[in-house]
């Protein structure tokens, strides 16, 4: 809002406005968190304490039983390691491919540019069910069946990431690019010094997006691997979500879900600060 020369009543109104905004944001945030808050409480609820009208939060007592049990029903330790390896592997390669490709699309004109771009975008538009059998055959042909690399490799090229990077790089002011060119930068230096720095928030956004997507991917890893040595967390989680004969075990499922999602929560909390660099409505630089 405006600087300090405003008269007092308007400042009061501003403070009231901020207070109301905070209240609104808090209420909305709480509402949005309700499902997970409930799951958190349910995960500590004794497993055979049924939910009923007026009794959906804490049960007779609080117990860690669900977590202990969930952990014991699948090799979660191994799954954690596998998932981290897979997600890091994918992200590492993707960061390279999307920056290079995004840069090419943003910085150059070349023949067939638009066609190639739409070709790459296809990857976002194809449903997984159409991919299962053909990619299974390709992976077998490559001799990679039942490996973590097999889970990761179809994603090394990322249409979404390329799209996002092209977007972010296009936001960089032309004069900056031209200045860099005039200074004699080659393309690697252009990327490093001109394009990348303002694109960091987008890279982080992409990283979070890619990490959460692949952390939670279920069908492809299940199809392309058979052994626990290469399977990710979702292979463990599915033991709690497909209980067709009996229906959901809310407490157990909540515990398993939170176990699977917790690392991502933590990663997000660490990285979310990086989103906010300098911009504020205060008009200060």
């Amino acid at each position, binding site marked *: 809002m*405006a600087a300090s020369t405003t008269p007092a009543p308007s400042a009061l109104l501003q403070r009231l*406005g901020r207070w109301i905004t905070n209240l609104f*944001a808090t209420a*909305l945030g709480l509402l*949005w*968190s309700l*499902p*997970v808050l*409930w799951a958190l409480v349910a995960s500590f609820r004794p497993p055979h304490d049924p939910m009923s*009208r007026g009794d959906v939060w804490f049960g007779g007592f609080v117990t860690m039983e669900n977590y202990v049990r969930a952990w014991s029903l699948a090799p979660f330790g191994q799954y954690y390691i596998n998932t981290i390896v897979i997600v890091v592997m994918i992200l590492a390669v993707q960061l*390279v*491919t999307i920056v290079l*490709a995004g840069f*090419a*699309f943003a910085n*150059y*004109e*070349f023949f067939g540019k638009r066609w*190639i771009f739409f*070709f790459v975008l*296809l*990857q*976002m*538009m*194809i*449903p997984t*069910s*159409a991919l299962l059998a053909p*990619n299974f055959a*390709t992976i077998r042909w490559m001799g990679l069946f039942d490996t973590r690399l097999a889970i990761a*490799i*179809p994603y*090394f*090229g*990322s*249409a979404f990431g390329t*799209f996002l990077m092209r977007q*972010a790089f296009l*936001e960089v002011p*032309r004069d900056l690019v031209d200045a860099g060119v005039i200074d004699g930068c080659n*393309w690697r230096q252009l990327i490093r010094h001109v394009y990348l720095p303002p694109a960091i*928030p987008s890279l982080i*956004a992409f990283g*979070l*997006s890619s990490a959460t997507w692949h952390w*939670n991917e*279920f069908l492809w890893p299940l199809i392309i691997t058979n052994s626990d040595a290469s399977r990710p967390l*979702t292979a463990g989680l599915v033991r709690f*979500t497909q209980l067709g004969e009996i229906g*959901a075990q809310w407490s157990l*499922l909540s515990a398993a*879900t939170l176990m699977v*999602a917790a690392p991502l929560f933590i990663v997000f909390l660490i990285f*979310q600060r990086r*989103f906010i660099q*300098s911009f*504020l*409505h205060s*008009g*200060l630089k």
Partner: protein
Amino acid sequence: MSASSLRKKRSGLPYLLILPTAGFVALFTAWPVLLSFYQSFFLQRLNIARFRDPTFIGFGNYVDLFSDPYFLQVIENTLTYILGTVPISIMLGFLFSLLVNRKVRGVGFFRLAFFHPMVLPMVSAATIWLFFFTPDYGLFNTALRALGYTGAQNWTGNPDLAILSVIIVAIWKNAGYYMIFYLAGLQNLPTDVYEAAALDGANGWQTLWKITFPLLRRTTVFITIIAFIDAFRTVDHIFVLTSGGPSRSSTVLLFELWLERFEYQDIGASAAITVIFIVVLLAFTVTNFITSERKEA
């Protein structure tokens, strides 16, 4: 983007830079797309012995699909789902980004509160919502009754409400995701425009609608495309919440595709639906793209 500042490259450098990405896409996406395209012209059903080997039928699969009233209902459901999910998720994403783009103590937890649904596996999230939608004591209904709602509560069993239930879960899951991209976009807004506006005495609303939102146009176009594609591609929650029902009222295109491929074992029909799927998404993306880029120039 003036042509003079884009470097016309006669060397192969841009192609080399794109090669890794295009290579992986070609191997793991283009090839399956071609295969689906090819298969869509054949009659092939794995669960009838005499239809196991494909027979060429030209556009037969497409004709059958579009003359089937069920498929038309699926298209209608899909449109409802898209219209219900995409605009609201994007607007909420924008609202959230404004709320958390402030210097307030503990804003990190606000960001977590809005973003965290994205982090949960969809199957788990949908199962939790399954509880929330339970008539009578499910928390969604409890909250609604607390706000004075006295209407129907059978969210997943009522044919008029079932599609709403899956829309609600999709919005809840995705709004925080779009918030992230708006936040990233907000970071790169030029501060000098805001200084000028402040000096001119613009208030918060005017700043928002006349400056911030227009400056975020490219981000909004990007998010719209992503949201549209996401709405088509995510159906895990439908499996959990409604199984596409009741009476198919919540069966959308991708769900129908799954049914054709894995329940009815109809390779030809599922390939045709895959092609339709891709064509729709491609058409939307390309159109959006071209119109937005034209506005730039």
